[in-house]
């Protein structure tokens, strides 16, 4: 036997050659036209059900109404107190979470498959008979305002809010943020009427994944197939971008680090540059081996981590660079970010680096498609963004085939310092 040569890497199967397949998603329609998307897979007897309502903050007429309505969905119905609802969910070892986004707002149930039939009537009750008790709202306002005072001491929290306002404007759904005044202004009646319009009579879809009992679709139809499901028209909110580009803010005079955010507007997933930009972004700051990480963390040690990403937004998006760096090296960090942009605009990415990024992205995709919850997540992303499954294959094709020249052109178009907002909050 030959002695082991440890300098020699074992042969690789290039991930680029994987025939990745987006496993199909079963589609059903309830009597009221509500679509139900299902992935029946996995070894564990568990389920995830997600009710997606067109009830995000784009639909509200006053700040925080959508988020508060969503949050208080499970804090009381006509016949059950908040405690009784929590107790019933907790007793069955289930988790009932809610989240409010810009266009949609969701209610998500995780449970053992054997308990799902005991939990679904409760979910129906939340979606038809929530009452938003005055006392629950009062407590929510008090605790949220106090949490906010804590968060406002954190430079990363403050920077995250401000950069969004520069990109979209303070009144845009993507740019507005919470404040003590906005919490104070909330009234129970507003929640009740938002709930009535966007939940009880609202438009929704269902996403289900895990070990699916054979009668589940029938049960879902019985409990959710008679809800009104009226189509909602998305109000238009033009973005108002800030004129000033550079900001330096002192939030805490004793702070040891600065939160850096640099961002530029970027089109949404339907734009032809979106997919190639995902590849360029990976090279730039999208993974541990990226240019930004290699230079600013691994070479200079300015930060624990630096990342770039394209925001997960439906209407219009932004390309963001985000990090926390030592107070004394913040300006040097900003300079290095621009230097990396310059590099991408002026010099072709080597075939070696590009091939590494292609393999890394394909391997990641293979892992991301593993498991029922991951799969339904990918389908949900396509469906909510109104993209066909072909978009997935186009992504793969672009990862495999986009050229260094194409990426350099893209860098010239989008990675221009003068287009970026630049913010440091200490």
């Amino acid at each position, binding site marked *: 036997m030959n002695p082991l040569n440890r300098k020699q890497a*074992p042969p690789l199967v290039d991930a680029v050659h994987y025939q990745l397949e987006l496993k199909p998603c079963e589609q059903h329609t309830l009597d009221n036209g509500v679509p139900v998307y299902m992935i029946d897979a996995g070894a564990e007897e568990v389920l995830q059900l997600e009710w997606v309502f067109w009830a995000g903050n784009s639909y509200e007429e006053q700040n925080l109404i959508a988020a508060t309505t969503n949050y208080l969905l499970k804090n009381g119905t006509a016949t059950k107190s908040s405690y009784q609802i929590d107790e019933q969910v907790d007793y069955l070892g289930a988790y009932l979470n809610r989240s409010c986004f810009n266009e949609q707002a969701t209610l998500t149930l995780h449970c053992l498959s054997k308990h799902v039939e005991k939990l679904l009537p409760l979910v129906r009750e939340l979606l038809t008979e929530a009452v938003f008790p005055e006392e629950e709202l009062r407590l929510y306002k008090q605790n949220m305002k*106090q949490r906010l005072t804590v968060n406002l001491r954190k430079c990363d929290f403050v920077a995250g809010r401000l950069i969004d306002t520069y990109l979209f404007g303070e009144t845009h759904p993507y740019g507005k943020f919470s404040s003590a005044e906005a919490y104070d202004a909330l009234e129970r009646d507003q929640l009740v009427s938002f709930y009535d319009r966007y939940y009880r009579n609202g438009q929704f879809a269902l996403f289900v994944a895990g070990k699916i009992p054979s009668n589940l679709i029938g049960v879902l139809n019985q409990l959710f197939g008679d809800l009104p499901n009226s189509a909602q028209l998305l109000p238009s909110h033009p973005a108002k971008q800030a004129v000033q580009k550079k900001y330096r803010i002192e939030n805490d005079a004793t702070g040891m680090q600065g939160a850096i955010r640099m961002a530029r507007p970027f089109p949404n997933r339907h734009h032809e540059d979106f997919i190639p930009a995902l590849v360029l972004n990976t090279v730039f700051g999208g993974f541990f081996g990226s240019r930004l990480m290699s230079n600013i963390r691994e070479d200079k040690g300015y930060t624990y981590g630096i990342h770039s990403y394209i925001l997960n937004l439906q209407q219009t998006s932004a390309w963001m660079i985000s990090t926390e760096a030592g107070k004394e090296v913040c300006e040097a960090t900003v300079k290095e970010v621009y230097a990396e942009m310059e590099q991408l605009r002026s010099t072709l990415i080597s075939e070696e680096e590009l091939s590494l990024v292609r393999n890394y992205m394909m391997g990641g995709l293979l892992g991301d498609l593993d498991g029922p919850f991951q799969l339904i997540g990918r389908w949900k992303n396509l469906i909510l963004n109104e993209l066909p499954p072909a978009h997935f294959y186009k992504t793969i094709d672009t990862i495999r085939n986009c050229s260094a020249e194409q990426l350099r052109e893209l860098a010239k178009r989008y990675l221009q310092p003068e287009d970026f907002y630049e913010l440091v909050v200490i």
Partner: protein
Amino acid sequence: MIQFERFVLQNGLRVLVHTDVSTPMAVVNVLYDVGARDENPKQTGFAHLFEHLMFGGSVNIPDYDEPLQMAGGENNAYTTNDLTNYYIQLPADNLETAFWLESDRMLSLAFNEKSLATQRKVVCEEFKENYLNKPYGDVWHTMRQLAYQVHPYQWMTIGKELAHIEQAQLQQVKDFFFKHYTPCNAILVVAGNVHAGKVVALAEKWFGDIPSGTKYNRQLPQEPTQTKARQKEMRAAVPLDLLCKTWHMAGRLGEDYHATDLLTDILGGNNSSRLYQQLVKEQKLFVHLDCYHFGSSDPGLLTIEGKLVEGISMEKAEQALQIEIDKICKEGPSEQELQKVKNKTESLIAFEDMSVMSRASSLAYYELLGDAAWMNTELQQYASVTTAQINEVSNQLFRAENSNTLYYYATK
């Protein structure tokens, strides 16, 4: 039921294989039996700093990350007070790449000055980001020092102070490596779309010739039984007062561990739990209240921690909390409450076991504790806990002389 096979190489490396052909991926998890508790009190933060250095190149492979990314893989690591764990996920076809990379860094690191200098800085920024530059970031630093007088749990994994990391020298790094990063102090778990026979062959090929090293014999000073309640006051520029109380509890293998874990859930595991219902919802004294523990190997701390609603005095909040504690000590939990937290544990385990990565790290962890097969009997351990046991544990634990209290006052 998680199936696995166990092999031991000549050099003492334990190898566990868990096959799941429903995934196209493989996971390679290497656990080293060393954590922050094994550090010299004058060189704290070392185990964690070391975790960073493990990515700075090994003796035959100048760059760890690049070849892995080329293989379509991802990796990360974490350090706790008890252990250090490294994991890779990659397409199963490229499994051997993970063996090549992990075995070379077990053989020896490159030990390069530049990498040490950079990672010292990176870890200092991590220290600032998570502990120094965050409101309430120093709560655990203080609480550990209050609760542990001799046991090395008295410092956090990030370290006691920045200076310990700033002063780390290359020779100390080498010594640490050859003491702890050896086959006989490690556990290798390979999981996913893999074949046991092939894994054994790869393990022999890549890890077989690494010198065994000396088995590390942990002899830590054990914390003496606390005999008097301890209190400490702090003031900081934060918006809200915070109350943090801890009580010494059983270690991971202690007889009372499972009952204590369920007690923690009964008190504070979710919205229907006692403390949240009484103190946040009913009496409106706390903005939030958490009850938790870290599941540490040596005797740990059951913790109750919450921020006070503005205008509520520390005395009032602490008194109300004490009433709840007295109640559980006197009456114990109801059968329904106990069943609820058992159900929660059952579903938590099912959700955790969905991911191959999580199964692999659990196998490694239970093997470290004594036997990977315990992973499959864990649920029974919880199921057999009775209300009487929880009551007994509560009375044992919540004695005033076993408590440590931190009053963290906001100076605004």
